[in-house]
């Protein structure tokens, strides 16, 4: 028996967070303020995501935690262990087996289905923040649907770089109403946000929760003559040969050598198990 209350937070806190989540789902893309708690980890490590996950978990859930697509990075391992210890729930690295997936900066490549919840960790929930520092003003702009400023940011990108250079945290409009920061996921993932799973966003330091319900329209902002382009590195994965996944670039020596690998480790491993091979896959002989 664990000495912790189930999933670390006390029941009243989870109740408060659930109310915020329900409100967020009722108003897709709207940032609901909530009384964020101190968590046993530093701000910026996913305190918001952890609180949302804690409020969603039931003893029957299976949890998967990824950080930049990988299951085996420090952040992912720590959060997974945290819930193993405090909630004593089952954990997995398989996207398809998980009922709750907490993610930092990626959406899994494998399409999510109904019955799954994707929880994002959000550093700065306000998409207008860098152009308008006043919270009173940004709230008013959301309320009155004054989103011209968001396009000023994209305009500046094109004026300076010749194309929309924003490549992550690319602003989206949810269900034709609220402009939302999709957290720092690569813009390659933006089209995936119209999905069957529930998407919840938690920002611990900024004390905001927002949500995208299943099958909600999510449109990436753009200009008529500079349409949205979900770009990725122009390579196949060097381990599994996939050409349709988001890739990480890995420096492998000090002579300019590099390789591109799927950032979603579970998806890449699954493809390799099915026999897919990439340019730098270990050969059969070397493996033996």
């Amino acid at each position, binding site marked *: 028996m664990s000495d912790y209350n189930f999933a670390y937070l006390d029941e009243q806190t989870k109740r408060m967070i659930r109310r915020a989540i329900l409100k967020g789902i009722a108003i897709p893309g709207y940032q609901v303020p909530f009384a964020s708690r101190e968590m046993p980890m530093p701000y910026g490590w996913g305190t918001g995501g952890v609180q949302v996950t804690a409020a969603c978990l039931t003893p029957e859930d299976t949890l998967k935690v990824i950080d930049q697509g990988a299951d085996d990075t420090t952040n992912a391992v720590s959060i997974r262990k945290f819930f193993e210890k405090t909630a004593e729930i089952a954990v997995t690295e398989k996207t398809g087996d998980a009922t709750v997936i907490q993610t930092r900066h990626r959406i899994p490549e494998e399409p999510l289905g109904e019955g799954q919840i994707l929880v994002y960790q959000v550093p700065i929930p306000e998409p207008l923040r860098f152009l308008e520092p006043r919270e009173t003003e940004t709230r008013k702009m959301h309320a009155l649907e004054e989103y011209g400023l968001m*396009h000023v940011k994209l305009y500046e990108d094109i004026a300076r770089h010749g194309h929309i250079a924003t490549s992550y945290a690319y602003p989206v409009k949810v269900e034709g109403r609220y402009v939302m920061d999709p957290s720092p996921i690569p813009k390659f993932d933006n089209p995936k946000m119209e999905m069957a799973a529930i998407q919840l966003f938690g920002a611990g330091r900024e004390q905001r929760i927002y949500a995208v319900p299943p099958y909600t329209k999510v449109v990436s902002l753009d200009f008529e003559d500079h349409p949205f382009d979900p770009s990725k590195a122009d390579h196949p994965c060097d381990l599994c040969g996939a050409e349709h996944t988001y890739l990480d670039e890995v420096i492998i020596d000090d002579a300019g050598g590099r390789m591109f690998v799927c950032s979603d480790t579970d998806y890449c491993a699954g493809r390799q198990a099915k026999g897919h091979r990439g340019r730098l896959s270990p050969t059969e002989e070397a493996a033996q």
Partner: protein
Amino acid sequence: MSAQITPPLPIPLLPVPLLSVKDIHKTYGGRIGCTDVSFDLYPGEVMGIVGESGSGKSTLLNCMAGHIPTDSGQVLFDTRDRGLIDTLTMSEPERRMLARTDWAFVHQHARDGLRMSVSAGGNVGERLMAVGARHYGDIRAQAVDWLGRVEIDEDRMDDRPSAFSGGMQQRLQIARNLVTGPRLVFMDEPTGGLDVSVQARLLDLLRGLVREMGLSAIIVTHDLAVVRLLADRLMVMKSGHVVETGLTDQVLDDPQHAYTQLLVSSVLQV
């Protein structure tokens, strides 16, 4: 009998005022900001408000533009779709819409009216994007056009305003405000803080734009030369009250109120 059924001769209709201000009253605690201010502004007319520091002219301007709440009074504006409407009681979305389409506000300090971290082109384009422009090429073309009209070189378009001189910043602010073709411009000391030669150029530019676009404008200033050049009519304020109104040349050449006389005689003749 026949005389009675003849339709009456058409009475020449008075034009509808663009802006009609009625009994504006604003106090700060017990102190008067401005009180009993009423006037009409007709399309194409430029009105000057002069007075010393603390006379309530900026308070009045901010009340009219809806920047600060008014204690009592009405500010009726001739909107495009619904005619004369009190802007102080209209809903906030409507007022903000008005403020970025038919109205413009030129601040004394350009930094108050510009986004200093956004390029000049982005500053001019912001109002266009705020009213729904979503074509980069068109927005940029309009920005180029407007920067040209306020004499800013096209190759400075992607520079930030912080790299501009004070006079250029002020001209950029004017371009940013006029790009959506407003009908009424509020100006708060547009030439304040600029040296005289830059002032002269800016005034020249403003006069050209006002005449060319048929703008109505309300200009608050303490500089009598500015109103002499730009304003058709003049309102002199002191201690929150309007002490004299009239045609600009009439008020400046034949001041009636003691304070106006003082004001006019205070100007150094070079």
